[in-house]
Structure formats: C-alpha cells, structure tokens
C-alpha cells in the first residue's frame, strides 16, 4: 500500500502538474466547500492518525486543542528538521511530493483557524528548501495557497525557514524559539505550543510525514485510514533503514510490520550474508534490540512495550562484526555535541558519560564504571529538562544491558594490559 510514496518514480514528481494528475489538490477544495473546521478535525480523529515526528501524539487531538484557543493569529509549523541520526524519510516527501505536504498544511490551517504556515527545514537540505519554495510558488499561482484560496475567503501563506545546524531545533519548543530568531533552547512544557507557541500564540507543530497523510485521509475518509496497519496506530509508516543491510533506503510499509520482515524481506537482509547483531529502531535516541527481538512489531505501542521506541522510524542495523560499545559511544558524542546547554543533567551528565565511555574504549575502565554509567544515566533520564537529555542515555543503557560482555571485554583487556605492564590496579 502506497500513500506517501505514490508519486515516487513519476516523471518530474515535485511539479504541481504531476501532483494534480494523481488526485492532488482534490482534498483542499472539498474541505473548503463542503466541510466545517470541526468536520475536518473529526475526520482526522476518526483516522486515529498519530504524529510521525517521534512522540506519536494523536494529530486530531492536537488540532482540536489549537482550534479551541480563540487567540489569533494562529500558526501551523511543519517540522522538517529531520535531525535524528539515521532518519532520511521526510526528505523523500519533500523532494518527491512537496505538494502533498503543502496541501496537508493548508487543510490543517483551515481546521484550526491558522492563516500562516512555516516549514522549518534542516540546513543540510538546501535542495529540499528550493523544491519547497518552487512548489509554494506553483501552488500560489493556482490559488491553492495565498490570499482568498479558491475564492473561499480562506487565506493561508507558507514560508520556508532554513535551519542553521542544531539538532535540538527539531524539538518543537526549541524550533519555535529558533523561528523567533533566538538560540534554539527548549521551553518548559506545559504550556504546550497549541496554546503558547510561536510568538506565544496557538501553534500546531506537525512532522512532514504527519501532514502528508492529511489529504489522502480527507479524500478516502478517516475510517479507511484507521483500517490500515494496526488498530492503535493505524496507517502506513515511512521507515528509513540504514547500516549493514543490502538495500538501505526508505520503505513505506503498514504500521506494525515485524522488524524481521523489514530487514530481511524489504531491505534485502544483512550485507555480505553476515548475521544480524542489533538494531536501533528509532535512531540514536532509541534503545537497541538484539537478535532475540527480531519479531517485534514496528509501531509506537509494540516498541514501547519492548522497552524502546519507534521515534521517527529510523532503523539502524548492525551486523555481527559491529562493536556495540563504539556504536553507543558514537551516539553519545552526538548528544554531547547537540545538548543545548540549558540544563545541568544533560549538559554536564552527557559529557561525563562520554568521558567514561572513552575511558572504557581505551582500556582504562573498570567494572564499577558500568554501575556508575547506569547511575548517571538514570539521573540524566529522570531530571533533564527536555526530550534530548531524556533519550540521550538510551543507547548506553540498552547496550550495557544487552551487550555487557562487550563492555567487559574492553575492561578486562585493559586490566590485563596494565598487569602485564606491572602497574596492576
């Protein structure tokens, strides 16, 4: 079933004419002519569409909250920051189907009463930003965006904002700070952006993939969508799969597809016929799964039950030759670098965790370090101000739990070397 990738492979897919032949801009006129904002929100609620940016929050509920707040002007922000290491799926929508995103944003705007939209795109996607700007001009020329859309009296203007290089700006409140021209540091939540967002006004922040689902839901109905995948999180999902697989790439599959099927049927199995060792199912922020967990289903609830998370659906696969301690350390360096510095547990904690990890890798660790790591990680997880710090410890905690022997190998090799050198500790 192809919903989000239906236009991939068409000639000139990003052009408005290609979009129009495939039911493009059919949902927006229907919404404007036949539906009230409440109808639109109800339809999205019936679809049970959940946010694809990582948290899986029900989109209909988010729109409802923003629509109930009477203060204006309201804003729709499309989160195209796509910074989670291992994620490259929003890029596919942006490059191959930008109009699906624009149409979804306009419908969201109508539903919540917003007149202005921003697309916050990561700085590493300059081509994507150009494609979006071109698509916006094409849509404006045909009155699908801009003032008085299709003579309905509804105004909706979209601006593209290019990120300047900060992973934390994918977090919705940091993103808003950044849009306001400030350092991208997270705000306290609550209040949530639906009430106090851009310029302290009601704001909906949705991921690219979430918004790209909107027009098809309106056209075919919420109950059609709710019947795809699994009941608690319906629909298809874009999985970015990378690492040691034969065919890395983006795959659109029903929510809840087993990890084994994703890796071995769709992504062509492990490179060079080697064995599977582990996968991070939701990028750097997720805990790893080992070979005994290959049958887990890839959806928000199943992965949470397995002690990890779906996040943005970035599956990083490692084969039997992978070094789990090094892999966890690479992720930790990333979080240390990307910590926004606002709160102590994350800013200082992740720094120390990384130091201990490097020590272990250099053969200077001890078994007590593993307990120390888990202890610090627990403090970081429970006391960090935002999701970055909270999730930063997942790779370490999960690898210590599931691949403790690899940590011990470094520790014991190091202590043997020290004994041999006559400086036994």
């Amino acid at each position, binding site marked *: 079933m192809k919903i989000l990738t239906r236009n991939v492979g068409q000639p000139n897919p990003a052009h408005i004419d290609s979009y129009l032949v495939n039911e493009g801009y059919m949902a927006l006129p229907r919404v404007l002519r036949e539906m009230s904002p409440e109808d639109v929100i109800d339809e999205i609620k019936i679809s049970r569409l959940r946010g694809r940016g990582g948290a899986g929050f029900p989109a209909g509920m988010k729109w409802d909250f923003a629509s109930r707040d009477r203060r204006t002007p309201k804003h729709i922000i499309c989160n195209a920051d*796509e*910074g*989670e*290491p*291992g*994620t*490259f799926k929003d*890029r596919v929508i942006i490059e191959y189907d930008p109009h699906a995103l624009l149409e979804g944003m306009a419908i969201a705007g109508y539903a919540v009463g917003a007149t202005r939209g921003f697309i916050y795109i*990561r*700085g*590493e*996607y*300059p*081509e994507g930003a150009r494609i979006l700007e071109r698509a916006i001009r094409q849509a404006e020329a045909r009155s699908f965006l801009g003032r008085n859309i299709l003579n309905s009296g509804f105004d909706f203007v979209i601006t593209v*904002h*290019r*990120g*300047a*290089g*900060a*992973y934390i700006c994918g977090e919705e409140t940091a993103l808003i700070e*950044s*849009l*306001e*021209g*400030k*350092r*991208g540091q997270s705000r306290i939540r609550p209040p949530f952006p639906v009430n106090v967002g851009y*310029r302290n006004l009601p704001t909906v922040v949705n991921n690219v993939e979430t918004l790209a689902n909107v027009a098809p839901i309106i056209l075919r109905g919420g109950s059609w969508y709710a019947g795809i995948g699994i009941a608690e999180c319906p629909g298809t999902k874009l999985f*970015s*799969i*990378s*690492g*040691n697989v034969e065919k*890395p*790439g*983006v795959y659109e599959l029903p929510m809840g597809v087993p990890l084994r099927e994703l890796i071995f049927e769709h992504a062509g199995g492990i490179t060079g016929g080697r064995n599977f060792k582990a996968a*991070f199912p939701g990028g*750097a922020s997720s805990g790893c799964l080992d070979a005994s967990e290959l049958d887990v289903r890839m959806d928000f609830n199943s992965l949470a039950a397995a002690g990890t998370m779906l996040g943005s659906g*970035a599956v*990083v696969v*490692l*084969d039997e030759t*992978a070094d789990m301690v*090094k*892999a966890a350390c*690479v*992720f930790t360096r*990333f979080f240390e*670098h*990307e910590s*926004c510095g606002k709160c102590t547990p994350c800013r200082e904690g992740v720094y120390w965790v990384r130091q201990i990890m490097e020590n272990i890798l250099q053969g200077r660790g001890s078994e007590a370090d593993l307990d120390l790591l888990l202890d610090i990680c627990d403090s970081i997880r429970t006391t960090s101000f935002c999701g970055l710090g909270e999730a930063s410890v997942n790779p370490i905690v999960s690898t210590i739990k599931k691949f403790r022997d690899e940590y011990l190998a470094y520790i014991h090799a190091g202590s043997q070397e020290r004994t041999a050198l006559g400086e036994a500790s």
Partner: protein
Amino acid sequence: MSADVTLEDVREELEREPEEVLDLAPVYRIIESHREMKGMLIPILQEVQQVYGYVPEEAANLAADLMGIYRSQVFGVLTFYTQFHLTPRGRHIIRACSGTACHVRGGKTVINRLETVLGIGHGETTEDRFASFEKVACLGACGLAPVIMIDNDAHGQLDPLKTDRIIEALKEMDSMRRAD
C-alpha cells in the same frame, strides 16, 4: 636594555599591506530587504554569510545596531548554530558524515582519506582557501552511506578511491573557475 619599538618594527609596519576594508553595503541592503524584522535574525545572518562566506564581526555588529538589538544577542545566536562561521572559510565546504550508519559502512576510511588529501582536520581550512573540512553527525542521507557533502551536493557510497576522484574533480573545477 632593549627598546620597546625597534626600527625593524616601524619598517614592518610601514611595509604591511593596508588591511582590506570590509564593504558593509550588503548588510544594509539585506536588512532593508526585510521589512518585517522581528524574528528574522537567523535568515538575515544566513544571507550575510552567503555574501561574505562567513559572518565578519563588523557585519554582525552592524546588523545588531540596525535591527536595534544587543550585539550579544546576535553573537549568542551566531555561536549556538553550527552553520554560522565567524572566520573566513574555504571556497568549498566539505562535510563528512561520522554518524553510525556511515561508520559501519567504512565512513572512517573516507574521513581519513579526506584528511590526508586535504591536509587538514575537522574545522580547519586549507592554506590556499580551497576548502574547509568538517565532520558532522548525520547528513540525512544514510541510505547512501558513507556520505559526504560538498557545498550543496551529497556524494554517497564512497570509498577512499572514489573520494580521491571527487576531490580531484573539485580541485580542477576550482582552478578553472579561478582562471576565468
């Protein structure tokens, strides 16, 4: 006892090339093109960087003054985001991914090769200003691992040999452009 200022110093001072004066007109133009300035600091600084290749201190100060905000606010923003640069950079920006997906597909060998052929490490610029080199966390093209980005273009599925060829082609293009 030695003099604080020797004749040698004076001679050097006299012979030194006059420092290039920075043309700040583009900053005025950029600011003027943003009629609604509130919240536009980041796009404005991005445009300034587009013009100069980096954000010169004088340009940042001028932007702050024209926008009526504190200079410290502008520097706070400039130093927060990794894509802003306060010193001149190479004519080409080469970014290599050191993320996990690239790492497990030989990203390290590509990075090592780049550092060797360019003769510089992370965050450095070649003496002839040909290129600046950076290691980054993930370029969002993990399906093509290992990946590097040269200016606005991603190059994927690299190995040291392909890396050599890409850099050679870039050097050739660069010298042709400079000859024009």
